[in-house]
């Protein structure tokens, strides 16, 4: 899995890493037990300070999505159904919050945003038929 950073968005780099690994785990692009790059290797690959990688990995460890094993490396946690379900819910909830915030900026309330999302879902379903 390749992590892509946006250095100019104002979004903390450590959080961008967390979000992308989270997405990788939830979408099964990262299998349980898969090894993530070492702190030094990921810092070198992304051209960032190793402390930023440490912060991201610690947060992922705290969330139960990865396991940091001293001297061995960082691994995607063995998938337990509840972890996956809650991680997926958190991920979608985050996207929902962002969508609602953008909607509010355009003057649309939650009901209108939800209505549009369900219309889009219907359209997409029809296209698949």
């Amino acid at each position, binding site marked *: 899995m390749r992590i892509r950073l946006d250095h100019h968005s*104002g979004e*903390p780099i450590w959080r961008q890493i967390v979000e992308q690994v989270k997405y990788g785990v939830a979408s099964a692009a990262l299998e349980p037990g898969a090894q993530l790059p070492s702190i030094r290797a990921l810092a070198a690959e992304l051209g960032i*300070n190793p402390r930023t990688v440490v912060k991201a990995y610690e947060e992922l460890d705290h969330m139960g999505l990865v396991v940091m094993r001293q001297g061995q490396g960082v691994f995607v946690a063995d998938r337990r159904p509840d972890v996956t379900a809650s991680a997926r819910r958190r991920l979608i909830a985050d996207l929902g919050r962002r969508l609602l915030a953008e909607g509010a900026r355009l003057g649309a309330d939650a009901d209108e945003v939800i209505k549009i999302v369900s219309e889009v879902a219907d359209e997409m379903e029809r296209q698949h038929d």
Partner: protein
Amino acid sequence: MTEPTHVLVARRLSRDYGRRRALDAVSLEIPAGRIVALLGPNGAGKSTFLKLCAGMIEPTDGGASIFGISAREAPNSAPWRVACLLDSHEPPEWADGRRLVAMQAEASPRFDRAFADAFCFGGGIDPRQPYGSLSRGQRRRLLAGVVLASGADLILLDEPADGLDTAARRDLYDRLRRRVNDSGSTAIVATHNIHDIERVADDVAILARGRLVLHGSLEELREEVREIEAPLGAALKPDSPIEILARRRERDAELLWARSTGGERAIAAAFDAAPAISPVGLEDLYLALTQTSFEEFESAQEVQS
């Protein structure tokens, strides 16, 4: 002797040129292993700050220390620990790249020859070509490469990527990052190219009219600083735990840049009306801060006159 935790400590560092105060009571501490972007409009004091750190000029007031030694003494007691590329630095026209690399190698016990050869003589630079016959970008690349190869603990760079093309700029900053990550050295980079430096810097220090208007880690600023668009007349609740860094009145709204350790939630809660809050990139924050202090300066001048 224990190594001090900060590579550079400035205490009310000030410098006058004639009657003009170029640097005004700048105090900051820079820990090891960081890349610091030193930003500011022309004449803000960036080059003066770097020259004071390099011990090339005397402060008028206050002082700076490097590794616990006075910056003025450091070039004598530990010359190889600091390497700098300043805007005033120009080697003799006749000296070729090979000679410039050899001179730095002699002065630096930890000089990385392989690095110097790979970087300085990439980009079509012939080691035997006299310095005077190189293009602007080639000169900068050669001098920056020599500084990066020096193995110094503190690297001071004034517009190191000036005249370099996009690929060479990216290469220069990637290599700087690698050196800092691998050796734990520290770099201060003065530049106008905020877009390039935002990719690589850990910390930012912004000067305006000789004063330090912001210093902090970029990751912290990304967490804590937001741009706010509030309706005209919107009021801040008293005792809110937020710091207003800059504000600008537009025709139909007020723009504010605020900082809070409580992040977006604390900032939203500080206003009596719901404002539009968005994250802010370094370039916008820089403009907000430097333009505000410019306006303050202008109005202060009017009051005086």
